[in-house]
């Protein structure tokens, strides 16, 4: 479902003496449907960078990133937009929303973009918000004022409203209490059971060993870092 072939990335900082920072060198791996793979490695090894490259958020200099037969490295913006709408979900560590939009609509949006009716999308969104213990009295408010943990859960709800065939998770259980962490891990297990291919970054080792089938140590591909 997700396949990386000889992927490399360097940042060129034009306004800081044109410094070139190599971050990822020659990564290749594949993730099959129904499989969850953890990216590991010390802080700064490039886990989040690689994740962002797989989402098309960071530009990849060389190699191929194939998701559902689309090569993200060569794809046109509109092809990436379609892929993100139909195939590829991403739960980042940060919630970025239009101010003023109610939480329920924020969570329902991925389904609305797929043409699902407002009523059905909101029904699914409500179920997830319930499951993630976001009190109903908050649903009509914008999540911008929520606590860190609440925002995180809204972000997760949004990432799971639609059953994406491929999902990227950047620290989905960070800043969650045990009960909510358990809910998130069950959501991941359900997604795997229905055949989603998942790549995740989990600092929490117990979480990692519960949901992940394999680990890939990114330090091996980081120039200048000893694995």
């Amino acid at each position: 479902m997700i396949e990386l072939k000889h992927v490399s990335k360097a940042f060129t900082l034009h306004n800081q003496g044109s410094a070139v920072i190599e971050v990822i060198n020659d990564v290749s791996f594949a993730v099959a449907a129904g499989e969850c793979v953890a990216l590991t490695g010390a802080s700064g090894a490039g886990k989040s960078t690689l994740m962002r490259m797989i989402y098309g958020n960071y530009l990849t200099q060389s190699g191929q990133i194939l998701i559902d037969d689309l090569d993200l490295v060569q794809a046109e913006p509109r092809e990436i937009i379609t892929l993100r709408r139909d195939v590829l979900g991403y739960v980042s560590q940060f919630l970025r929303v239009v101010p003023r939009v109610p939480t329920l609509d924020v969570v329902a949006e991925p389904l609305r973009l797929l043409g699902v009716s407002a009523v059905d999308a909101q029904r699914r969104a409500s179920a997830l918000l319930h499951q993630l213990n976001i009190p109903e009295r908050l649903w009509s408010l914008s999540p911008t004022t929520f606590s860190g943990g609440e925002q995180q859960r809204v972000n997760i709800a949004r990432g799971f409203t639609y059953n994406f065939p491929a999902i990227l998770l950047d620290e989905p259980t960070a800043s969650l209490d045990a009960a909510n962490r358990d809910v998130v891990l069950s959501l991941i297990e359900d997604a795997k059971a229905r055949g989603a291919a998942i790549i995740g970054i989990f600092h929490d080792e117990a979480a990692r060993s519960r949901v992940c089938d394999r680990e890939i140590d990114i330090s091996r591909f980081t120039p200048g870092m000893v694995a």
Partner: protein
Amino acid sequence: MTPLLCVQGITKRYGAHIGCTDVSFDLYPGEVMGIVGESGSGKSTLLNCMAGNLAPDAGQVVFDTRCDGPRETISMSEPERRMLGRTDWAFVHQHARDGLRMGVSAGGNVGERLMALDERHYGDIRDKASDWLGRVEIDASRIDDRPTTFSGGMQQRLQIARNLVTGPRLVFMDEPTGGLDVSVQARLLDLLRGLVRDMGLSAIIVTHDLAVVRLLADRLMVMKDGHVVEAGLTDQVLDDPQHAYSQLLVSSVLQV
């Protein structure tokens, strides 16, 4: 899929000074493209050339019209282009008073575009006008008031209603949130996003506000000195800018 708009080699000079030079891109139905750059980078010149408000020195703008398929709009006759400007196209100005008729009531402002398309039934026009005032969150009781009595944010929303009432497929926007309070901006952005999604609009938005393009635009073009220096997916250009100028632009934004 046929692009809605094909822009090829648009160049505009003001004497020896370059307005914009050799700009080309395709815009597909439902896409929103942002154009950013500092003042004087040529983004408004480009927008006005595409929308037919300025005659470029070179280049083509091919638009996929509802009735006749792809047509080159720069060489089109003036009446034809004006018709396009009232039907398939809309233009939202930075200053609402440039896009509104200040001496005419709010309802009249919205109804005017309908009348230009030969709607004659007063009741229907008034109903549509009042429906659109509602959609842009202007109280229906203000329908007979002139825009001079409205706040800046309301005027801007009225301008949007006036432009969208005829169901255009492509909207050109020049700094639509410029000059508004931050809270009013947020409300307008939310409104625009909803309208783009629900009506399947395509839009080209010129702005210097990177937060606005992040929320509204799928794609982004960065201009400097009349040239497009970088183009791509909005979040990619903002989070991993490649060109020296884009890097400077992104890193210059003050964090709140």
